[in-house]
């Protein structure tokens, strides 16, 4: 067909292309009440933060609380410690949960309710009870972990893995739901790959988004967690905060804001990563 016919045919087949439609149609709702609630909410949330900021600036000279804290080696060492513990927790969680979730989906679908029930158990056992049980169990033979620093660290990581279990498992499971693991596995097997290769080279890379969002959530939990860190007597960030709270006047305000900022940063990253995924619910829960 020559250009002429093409042009005429094209004129007839001209697709209708539309500029962007407005997002919500419908009669305009009265939004006065909405604005009011929003304002009240923002005010309630902002006041304590403002209060903390004001206090942190009351030291003489004004920024000395901030400079003191930013120059305090222990702030950074405990922060770093918390980060490292958090990182180890994340790795252990991934190593434990990704193969489990994968295996359950692939081979043991009938076990799913049981596994999901187990992932709900950490909600039933609050951190204070958990650490109570852990200390009781592991302060005696055959595994007196609480006796040594390393043992306590191990206990800490395991406690945090348990604590973040519901969120991590849900994130990984949600991610697995979106990929057809059965077909992928069969393709891998027909190409000669073993289980480790399948998990490491195919499944894990496809779960990057879910794992990242679960990881940042775990990090936020670990950095902010006080109860377990306190009773296992490890130099974590939250326990250091508690210490200076008792001893200093204005510096705790500065650190409190630093801690808030860190959590916000982690959440911001989660939001950025998790954009487009549906499972945004229940990423909270303070102690």
């Amino acid at each position, binding site marked *: 067909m020559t250009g002429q*016919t093409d042009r005429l045919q094209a*004129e*007839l087949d001209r697709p*209708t292309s*539309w500029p962007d*439609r*407005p997002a919500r149609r419908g*009669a305009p709702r009265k939004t006065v009440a909405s604005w009011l609630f929003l304002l009240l909410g923002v005010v309630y949330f902002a006041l304590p933060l403002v209060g903390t900021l004001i206090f942190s600036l009351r030291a003489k000279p004004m920024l000395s609380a901030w400079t003191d804290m930013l120059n305090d080696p222990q702030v950074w060492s405990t922060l770093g410690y918390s980060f490292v513990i958090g990182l180890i927790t994340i790795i252990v969680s991934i190593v434990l949960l990704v193969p489990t979730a994968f295996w359950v989906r692939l081979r043991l679908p009938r076990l799913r309710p049981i596994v999901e029930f187990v992932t709900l158990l950490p909600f039933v056992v609050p951190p204070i009870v958990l650490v109570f049980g852990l200390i009781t169990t592991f302060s005696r033979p055959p595994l007196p972990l609480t006796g040594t620093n390393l043992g306590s660290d191990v206990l800490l990581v395991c406690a945090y893995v348990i604590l973040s279990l519901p969120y991590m498992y849900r994130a990984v499971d949600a991610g697995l739901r979106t990929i057809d693991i059965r077909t992928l596995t069969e393709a891998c097997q027909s190409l000669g790959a073993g289980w480790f290769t399948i998990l490491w080279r195919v499944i894990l890379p496809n779960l990057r988004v879910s794992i990242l969002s679960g990881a940042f959530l775990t990090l936020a939990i670990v950095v902010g967690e006080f109860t377990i860190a306190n009773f296992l007597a490890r130099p974590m960030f939250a326990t250091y905060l508690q210490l200076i709270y008792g001893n200093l006047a204005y510096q705790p305000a500065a650190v409190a804001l630093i801690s808030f900022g860190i959590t916000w940063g982690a959440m911001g990253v989660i939001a950025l990563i998790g954009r487009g995924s549906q499972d945004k619910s229940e990423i909270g829960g303070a102690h």
Partner: protein
Amino acid sequence: MSYLTLTGVKKQFPGGFVAVADFNLAMEKGEFVSFLGPSGCGKTTTLRMIAGFDQPTTGRVLIDGTDITDRPPNRRNVGMVFQAYALFPNMTVAANIGFGLKVRGADKASIARRTTELLELIGLPGKGNRYPWQMSGGQQQRVALARALAFEPQVLLLDEPLSALDAKIRVSLRAEIRAIQRKLGITTVYVTHDQEEALSLSDRIVVMSEGRIEQIGTPFEIYNFPRTPFVARFVGTLNVLSARVIDATTGRLDVGGQEMRATGAVGAAAGSAVSLALRPEILAMGDGEPDHVRLRGTVDEVTFLGAVVRIRVRLPGDAGVASVDTFNNPHLAVPARDSAVTFSFPAEACLVLGGWCQTRVLSG
């Protein structure tokens, strides 16, 4: 006297986008009118303006002489059936149907009576205490219809009610909808993008594109006498051949090196390129009647579809390809590929696009 009237209705969204421009329509009482067009043509927006969910930027909507343009949606007496059924999940089927009456303050006895009546009408007697999620899509849509009809609205509006259903159910349910509408004699507006639905159900069709009305007419008129290229293309299928105008006044055209005459003058200059649009049912293999147009070409492809044999004929030059559908005949040989064939059609049944000519009204 017009029962449902839209005058000068326009909808412009903030930001400048014009969804509906200058919509004018006068509907008789009891008439079934479809708004037909591709997605985004403004048909649903117009329907929502009748229902009151969107406000027209300018223009008025009148029902039975009363201007309802400024009334909120819960003060108009129109019943709407949504594409996604929108049945209230926390209520039984009966409660859903009776909802409109309940908020109007009717007493329990009359609500119950009317609900039973409607359940009969939609063919689901006795299913009143089921819940929506216990029913199939087709059943849910029928309940939605009953809910819209319960309070005896002046106008019934349906927003692509069958799009979410399976093909088989679509066909049976649309017949039921039409039967119910006829029985009740209720003025109805039906929005759809499916031309088969619009053609088979409506008294009149409003074909829309990009916010504008392309044509209003009966299904027969819309199909046989499309007034714009869009309507011709959108309703039914077309074979398109390219031609060149030899003589505009006499309607002589050059199609693939062969001369033919359209009926009447052609509204394009001599030498310019136009398109011939041919409905598949007017083409036939062979020479046809003495006064038919005959065109020669070579067979490109023959497809055996069972009852129908589709022969694609390529015309010489760059005129294009025509698909001729013939009924299967075991006693007749099917032409071979690359063989020379002739097909024919009555001149007055073709449409000339890109330079319009008015086709003569068919006698009878």
